[in-house]
């Protein structure tokens, strides 16, 4: 059966005739203007706050524009894009650090959220309390949680004192280049409650009969998890990995706060990437180029490159995910 949808304002089956030129405006067109008028706040907002900045950065990325400069802006073509790859050492440091976080932090955070969800749904008493406790950190503002971790992981802070009591010489955490990124990963695990809740809901949604069938086939807990739970929650795993990857490519606030709080002596510009550029991520480098060096054109090129990389990575990830994501109804 085919359903033909009539345009707004017309009854199904009404004959449509073209109005004569210069004739009275048709009711449907007048209705479109009403629709447009209602849409205009969004359209204007979208144009001013999204379209304009996006188009402006594309334009700036092809120029030598510097914020605050009165010099005439010169069109430089793709020079800023070439400079990214050929002239900057810190660009590659930032790329390496960002990729490290994408490869290490995203899977760990997803795995940790999955594990905590799996444990929590097995708790017989006080499940809601545990779920709330695990979820709460994700409600703490990022800046506040970063500052809390700075205090907790201070070289002479509570955790290192605790480690000292058991004879372990705690590391410098946020002040040691070797430990700074793992410290951020720890913070991400602590604040993974929002992902845990989604995993928890997905796990509770797995049909009971599937587990019963698996049990009848003699499957143990691990086999049930591998063969029943994992396929059933694979869309959630996909979601967590994809959103985590996109977020981590743009990772900024945690690193910026951690760097600035661990280094109390320097001016704002010196704080980026501390210690020893180990926390210099793509977005923090973009910030430095744009707001410390005022190289707006160059920073805009970085922003566009980041957009393209995230877009490409998302497309690739969606394609690859078809192999492991099981959708309800038996399809993949």
């Amino acid at each position, binding site marked *: 059966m085919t359903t033909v949808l009539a345009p707004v304002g017309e009854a199904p089956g009404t004959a449509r005739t073209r109005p004569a030129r210069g004739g009275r405006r048709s009711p449907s067109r007048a209705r479109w203007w009403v629709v447009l008028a209602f849409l205009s706040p969004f359209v204007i907002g979208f*144009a001013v706050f999204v379209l304009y900045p996006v188009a402006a950065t594309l334009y700036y990325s092809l120029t030598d524009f510097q*914020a*605050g400069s009165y010099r005439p802006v010169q069109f430089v073509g793709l020079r800023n894009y070439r400079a990214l790859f050929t002239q900057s050492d810190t660009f590659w440091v930032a790329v390496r650090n960002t990729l490290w976080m994408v490869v290490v932090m995203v899977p760990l955070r997803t795995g940790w959220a999955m594990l905590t969800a799996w444990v929590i749904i097995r708790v017989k008493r006080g499940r809601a309390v545990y779920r709330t406790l695990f979820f709460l950190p994700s409600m703490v503002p990022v800046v506040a949680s970063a500052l809390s971790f700075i205090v907790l992981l201070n070289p002479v802070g509570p955790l290192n004192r605790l480690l000292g009591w058991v004879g372990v010489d705690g590391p410098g955490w946020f002040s040691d280049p070797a430990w700074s990124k793992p410290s951020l990963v720890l913070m991400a695990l602590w604040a993974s409650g929002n992902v845990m809740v989604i995993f928890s809901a997905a796990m509770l949604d797995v049909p009971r009969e599937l587990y019963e069938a698996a049990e009848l086939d003699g499957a143990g807990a691990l086999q049930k998890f591998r063969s029943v739970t994992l396929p059933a929650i694979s869309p959630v795993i996909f979601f967590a990995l994809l959103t985590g990857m996109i977020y981590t490519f743009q990772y900024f606030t945690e690193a910026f706060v951690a760097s600035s709080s661990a280094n109390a002596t320097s001016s704002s510009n010196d704080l980026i990437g501390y210690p020893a550029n180990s926390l210099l991520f793509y977005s923090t480098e973009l910030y430095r180029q744009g*707001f410390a060096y005022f190289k707006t054109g160059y920073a805009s090129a970085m922003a566009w490159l980041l957009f393209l990389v995230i877009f490409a990575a998302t497309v690739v990830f969606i394609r690859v995910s078809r192999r492991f994501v099981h959708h309800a109804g038996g399809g993949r």
Partner: protein
Amino acid sequence: MFKAITGATAVTAAGVLLLAGCTSTGSTSSQPDSAISPGASHKATTVTVWTFNHLPNEVAAFKATLDRLHAKYPWLTVKFVPNKDDAAYAKAVAAGDPPDVFISSTPDNVAKFCYNGTVTDLSPYLSSAKIDTAKTFPPATLVYTRYQSKQCALPLLTDAFALYYNKKMFAAAGITKPPTTLAELTADAKKLTVKNADGSIKTYGFVPRSDYDVNRYLFVGAHSGTSFYGKDGRTTFASDPKWQQLLTWDQELIDYYGKANVQKFVGRYQPHADDAGNPLLTGAAAMEYDGEWHVGEIATEKKDFDYGVVPMPVLDGSSGTYGTGSTLGTVAYLSAGSKHKQEAFFALQQLTTDTTFLNTLADTVYNIPTTFAALKAWDKRDDPHWKPFVDIFENTHSSYKAVTPAGVEDIDTWRAFLLDYEQGKTKDAASGLATVGKKIDSLNSESGQ
């Protein structure tokens, strides 16, 4: 509908691209005909002053001065806005609404702002106000407030850096006088180093790593008898062997303590460089390179602490430079986009040359006043802890590196190299110095130097 939306979008996009090309409208081009006569009547004017200062006592000192200024010149009202950095200033300029006067914590962007036309060349205003910069401001301040022949900013308090040492520890180690050369510093540092029973280090003599506290200013030339930039405006890293000697000294002392121990020290004390947990105050270090503000901090945190301050030792073979040091400080700009430059300059002139204000603010933020007159009148100039800083500041050979249109990027590149070298990522000092020199020269030429 779709056509209507796509049409509107296309028009918007075209407008957007047009607008994107339109940034700030440019500077206003009023040149001073004659200076504002303080005694004459004048049309009521409000000028906006932005500053990086944000602490309550700093803001109070500013406000008190500005109130005094308003009482003295009722036609002049200053709208004072604290807590603004260079990024906020550049954004305001780009938006076409800059403050009339901007006070920045660092001189690093002086040449960049000057080259980009962001700020006004003050030379004609100074001439019309009959202010001779050479007779008003110590020469060290003119190095970092001038670019080419333009006076791009005026100094407003400054920092100087020197060696702090624990007198009791020196006496206990049998050291009778503070070191004057880096070789002596190393020898003393070793004598002052105390180890725990388990071999760990209880007290470090001196930790030189470039990213610790303000050690970065050890490596800009004043203490090695070198100049960051030569007369041709290019770096001297490859041509002046003293840079390599300086790096060797740094590496030897780091190796003496061990990289891991130094890392632990830096990580442990970096967050506490300016508070009661400072290693000099806690006894974890016997010597420390620091700015003059530390004198004020010590007076607040540990009044009875027995310490001395001397100029930072210099590289062996360049002992003629002993007594000099790195100096750099706060700078005040007159925006090129200011709509009342004459009045704004008058306010800026008061803030940068008024002796009472400079000395009050210096006492408040523990900095050094920046005019000869204010220095002469300053009651701290003969204090044994402050005097070395004043002497360093007034030394005609003291300076910061020359500022360039690359802004802070040149010194950031240098610091990244220093860290790579100290961490062993750059093995060969000579080739590393040549490479980083080329990079910085390239940055400068791209920036318009």
